[in-house]
């Protein structure tokens, strides 16, 4: 569908963005919490992107604002995928019993708006980045379990899996040796989708003021803080917003390309009778 050129460019941009977000706090910039000039100053010497609503350096705050977000999203994706793989394969292998009921319940939970779950689970420990991480993981798990469970259930009826189970191999062994290698593609694609959702949720959590409290920089919070002065000093809002858009669109398009070849674009034609 698309040539590999744009895709490679996108990948390079994303890698650059991730690297910048991760090393941002170590860059030799001014302090992200120190007031250096009047509020909402336009870009100038000493503050290349101007100042924010309290007169702090926008460039420094933007550089500091991405690491927590990315690490939260990555950790939530990794944790959620690991739990999803474990429960999903075991539930997919079970033909009856509590695990099949679990899959139904997971269906119901996955339908509840993720943002609501994040807000309510993070409500217990305000001001904690860890609570946001746990909450986003909780949202992510049901989706992983469902996708992995479905993929596993498709394989369960196949001869070699039945043979392995009939031979008396443990469920975990079967999952590891016979199932995992065959659902790796789906698992990776699913992890990609979970990462996109996790990034959005973590950014929104920052926007709503969950996670580490106020002076801490966070792209979501930066957008919120400076939106009121967007007419006077657009850079304070645009810089973090642009990075978030780049991250969101980049990962989405990349995941779209990754998952697209796996299934046909059109439903298969019916055979003429």
């Amino acid at each position, binding site marked *: 569908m698309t040539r590999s050129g744009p895709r490679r460019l996108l990948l390079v941009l994303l890698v650059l963005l991730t690297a910048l977000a991760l090393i941002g706090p170590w860059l030799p910039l001014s302090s992200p919490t120190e007031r250096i000039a009047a509020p909402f100053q336009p870009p100038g010497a000493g503050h290349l992107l101007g100042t924010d609503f309290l007169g702090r350096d926008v460039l420094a705050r933007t550089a500091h604002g991405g690491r927590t977000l990315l690490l939260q999203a990555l950790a939530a994706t990794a944790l959620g995928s690991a739990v999803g793989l474990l429960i999903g394969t075991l539930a*997919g292998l079970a033909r009856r019993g509590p695990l*099949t009921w679990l*899959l*139904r*319940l997971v*269906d*119901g*939970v996955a*339908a*509840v*708006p*993720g*943002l*609501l*779950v994040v*807000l*309510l*689970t*993070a*409500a*217990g*420990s*305000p001001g904690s980045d860890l609570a946001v991480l746990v909450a986003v993981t*909780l949202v992510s798990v049901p989706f992983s379990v*469902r996708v992995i*469970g*479905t993929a596993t*259930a498709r394989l369960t009826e196949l001869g070699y899996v039945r043979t392995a189970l009939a031979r008396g191999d443990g469920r975990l062994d079967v999952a590891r040796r016979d199932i995992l290698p065959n659902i790796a593609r789906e698992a990776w694609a699913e992890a990609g989708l979970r990462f*996109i959702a996790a990034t*959005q949720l973590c*950014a*929104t959590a920052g*926007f*709503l*003021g*969950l996670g580490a409290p106020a002076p801490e920089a966070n792209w*979501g919070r930066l*957008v*919120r803080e400076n*939106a*009121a*002065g*967007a*007419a006077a000093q*657009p850079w304070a*809002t645009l810089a973090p*917003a642009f990075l*978030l*858009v780049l991250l*969101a*669109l980049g*990962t*989405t*398009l990349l995941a*779209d390309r990754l998952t697209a070849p796996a299934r046909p*674009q*059109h*439903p298969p034609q*019916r055979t003429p009778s």
Partner: protein
Amino acid sequence: MTHFLLVRVGTALATMALLSAALFLATDALPGDAAGTAAGADATAGERAELRERLGLDRPVVERYLAWLGDSLTGDLGRSAAAGRPVGEMLASRFGSSVLLVATAVACIAVAATVLGLLAGLRSGRPVDRLVSSGTVTLLALPEFLLATALLAVFAHGAGLLPAVSLIPLGDSPWQHPQALVLPVASLFLAGVGIATRLLRAAVATAAESPAVEQARLSGERGPRLAWSYVLPAAAPAVQGLAVTTAGLLGGSLVVETLFNYPGVGSELARAVAYRDTAVVQGFGLALAGTALLVLLLGDLVSGLLDVRSRSASATGLRGERRLR
């Protein structure tokens, strides 16, 4: 059909039980509980213990959860620590505003998604389809708060056309101040129209391949009539997609209401979370989650009823993509 109904309602109830337990655990049983907050930072251990006893926090978690659930089900949601008013009363005064906001957005989304979904689905693979599909992917990728902030910056702060904050006098319904509704509704519309169009486009593309539609096309039906009379009924189960979108918008309303200071359930819930107003968090959270589950259940049932293929069949394959085996 009865089996299908029982399973769906049972799942919804079990999900609600699970969610309410998680909500209760997260807000009530974690360290730094309500007693610590209510007693203040410099309370002695004795004062805290006394307060815990008075609030009933020394009883086992399960017992307190069941008592809370019983109270909630009978309509007693407790009292807000910050406002001093009963939570049920606060909920009643704000629920209508949120319903108005979300319902208006959903109505707009339903119309737009139907038109765009038909346009794209009936011309799958052609330029209009690619245009609609890239548009929906873009909207899907962007978090609600960015879309809402962009609208706010352009129309309220930039052009000054619309109010940035929904200033609605106490006691008035937002309905009486339509200019306060425009930006919140537009934000929710943009947040939901992507996913709804995508789901409908998929349903239309599948329906367009069905023998019934092919037959109609061969007998000379075309254009809007073909779309309206033949394709849309075949794609009707996509109403479930609209239910999923609506449930998602209930989550999105948290962000949009907070940003525009709209006097609804979401903004009050976000505020209560920030101030640790436990009773409000529990009551409002329960109400929002319950509404989301109810909407999804209704969407499921309506879509099951509308699905021509399964009218005679039992519970098989009603939710094709959700079915696990």
